[in-house]
């Protein structure tokens, strides 16, 4: 017992403490930002380097804009490696959870009206999505009691969200994840993040849960399990799509074995991009995300 106490005292207060050493590597977590927009010459190598079409170019009246789709980016840093001008960087902690109704892309760089010298690239060839050629899946199931997927969006009241902000009980649902996101969620329970202090907990049954934290693109093999877990959760049931696979299908988009993201099956409340999102990103979405959701509900 004495030894336990000594260890606990020696480890000190950890919750919320940052990393204790100076980082030596460029981070691959967080949000992609143009840290030196003025250096960009619009050559578009970053767009070409991206294997998952997370970057695209849009031509505007007087120039062009680079768009970034956080829900697709897997953080492979190939765009950063490709850029000769060191324009791009991942900024950790600048989490970009997405609320319902927010666009799934953001403006990374605006080259309109800037004194750009090089010829703009042809954007037509660059904006395509690998999932586009997937054949229609109107009839998702042959004998799932003729349920129409995605399940319809459910309304929730401001008061509900206000209550959940103080006590959010989540049921975790792994439906095709690589277990990266799951590991980060386990880390949330550890002393560095300690979600229980904020009233957040992961519960054992969907019947005890207010929200589902869903990881993975929803593999078709687990559709039945997903459906039954969702319907077993009492209303208002929020769905957090954790990680890129759950946001958009990620690198598995277009596969015969998966749906392209959670929103193809269940109504998603908050998307948390990242491959995987860091525990800090997830925590931010579970707290700050709900706060902003309440503001949106208030306005409506």
């Amino acid at each position, binding site marked *: 017992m004495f030894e336990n106490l000594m260890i606990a005292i020696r480890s000190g207060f950890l919750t919320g403490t940052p990393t204790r050493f100076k980082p030596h590597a460029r981070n691959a977590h967080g949000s992609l930002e143009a840290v030196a927009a003025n250096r960009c010459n619009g050559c578009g190598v970053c767009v070409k380097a991206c294997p998952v079409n997370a970057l695209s170019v849009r031509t505007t009246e007087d120039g062009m804009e680079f768009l970034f789709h956080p829900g697709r980016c897997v953080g492979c840093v190939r765009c950063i490696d490709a850029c000769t001008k060191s324009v791009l960087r991942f900024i950790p902690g600048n989490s970009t959870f997405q609320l319902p109704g927010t666009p799934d892309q953001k403006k990374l760089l605006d080259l309109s009206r800037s004194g750009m010298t090089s010829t703009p690239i042809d954007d037509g060839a660059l904006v395509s999505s690998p999932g586009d050629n997937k054949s229609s899946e109107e009839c998702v199931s042959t004998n799932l009691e003729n349920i129409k997927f995605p399940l319809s969006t459910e309304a929730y009241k401001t008061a509900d969200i206000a209550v959940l902000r103080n006590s959010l009980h989540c049921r975790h649902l792994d439906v095709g994840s690589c277990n990266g996101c799951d590991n980060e969620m386990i880390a949330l329970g550890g002393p560095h993040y300690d979600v229980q202090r904020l009233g957040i907990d992961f519960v054992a049954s969907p019947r005890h849960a207010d929200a589902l934290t869903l990881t993975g693109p929803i593999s078709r093999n687990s559709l039945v399990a997903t459906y039954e877990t969702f319907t077993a959760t009492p209303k208002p049931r929020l769905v957090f799509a954790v990680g890129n696979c759950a946001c958009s299908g990620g690198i*598995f988009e277009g596969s015969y074995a998966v749906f392209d993201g959670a929103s193809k099956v269940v109504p998603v409340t908050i998307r948390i991009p990242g491959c995987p999102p860091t525990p800090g990103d997830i925590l931010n979405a579970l707290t700050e995300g709900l706060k902003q959701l309440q503001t949106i509900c208030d306005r409506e």
Partner: protein
Amino acid sequence: MTHFNAVEGFLSIWTIDYHIENDRPFFGRVERDRLFCCLESAKSELGARLSMLTARDYGRMNDRFSLLVILDIPATTSYLAIETPLPDDNLTYRSLTPLFPNASWPEREIRDMFGITACDTPDTRPFIRKGAWPADLFPLRKDISPHRAYPIERVLLPTTVVEGEGVIEVPVGPIHAGIIEPGHFRIQVIGDTLLSLDAQFAFCHRGIEKLAEGRDPLGALLLAERQCGTCSVSNTLSFCLAVENAAGISVPPRAAYIRVILAELERLYNHVNDIAAIAAGIGMAFVTQQGLVLKEELQRINAGFFGHRFLRNVVIPGGIRSYPGIDPLNEMVELLAPIVRRLDSIVAVAIGNSIFQDRLENTGILTRSNANELGGVGPAARASGVSIDTRCDHPYDGYRILPGFDIPTRHECDVMARFRMRLDEIPTTLALIEAAVKSLPVVSSPIAATIPIIAPGSWGFGATESARGENCVFIAFDAHGRIDRYAVRTASYLNWPLIPTTVRGNILPDFPLINKSFELCYADVDR
């Protein structure tokens, strides 16, 4: 050299044609009707273990399908690949399960994915197919599009039936109580005592092997990296070794050492996580939480020095993408030592606790013969006295050049042995990281070799030791240098069938504990 002669003699007797090349697996083609006898002889004469059993579809009119068996020949540092063409009008072969019990799962998988049937196989249930595509459709065949989706059927999973007075069946999953991956278990109990366990997988099936087809190595790298979160480095490394094997290149020395550092960092945080998870299995919150603290600190070190908490994006075909430099790496070694010291003090608390001892000792016995027969790998097999470690048996990258290191084994075979096994391995891991950092060449030399244009029809094989055991990858290329077949066999795939052999006679609450003492990934099994 005598072993080489033995293998060559074996190949000349059994095969239609064979190739022996340096640094590549032995390769031989065997007729279908002689395959069983050939493997029987390989097992008895060469002591072969089954590493991988899979199939290939060449997508051509004639001789379209073939069966691929990759054997581990423990006496040599090489593998033996045997390809068996199958007649187009009769896609069957004699089941290999009586010879290698761990062939049962791959045989079921080959049936699901290629429609090639093993005759007289004891288990004919589907393995990967869970109603997501029609039973007469085989996704890995070349005429099936990777992007086409099919209506989903609700299927009842066929499970083993156990009958008798007082037998109760406990169904668990696929959605589990904790933050765990999906798998479905049928546990039969009498009172509180476990009688048998039937595990169902493939809820995480994402079609990775099919998606990789038609991509170039860099495109498929993302898939290999994201097959499993906690084995990212090992899976990527196996993938890269297979590509390098096919291209016939070797990585520069600096990359070889950095790869050792990465693989060992991954092993370190996984072992710390497993120690915490075993403590969680008996509800010992103090050790679990302290373990999570150390795991988080290790993952922050990963992110701080290599940019990613799961060490992704560093290993690439041909070498590595970047590394922080020698001085930061020395600083990293200094950060690791205190973490391991803190781990030791935490573990001392656990091991000194009588409840901890009582729950772990003599629980979940994995007998040495079961581990051997079922082809167990990794710390689980080593805790049952099977001395098997890819780092020693088939050294790759920096493990070839680094001085010899100990691979500890234990003989108690229980959960405690597997717990202590991880502790025993940590000093080796630290020593390897330290040695690799010390041996890093100071002169600036390239960190990645360029991958030349890969010759049409070439193939490669790579195997690495993850925190769970040996992960193997087989890659074959088509005429345009794109991947034609990407086959993965992970440590979890081999070790899962060990768990049902260990649970019988234990109490039901010990099942999660036994499961955690193996700490296997489902994502790695399902792909």
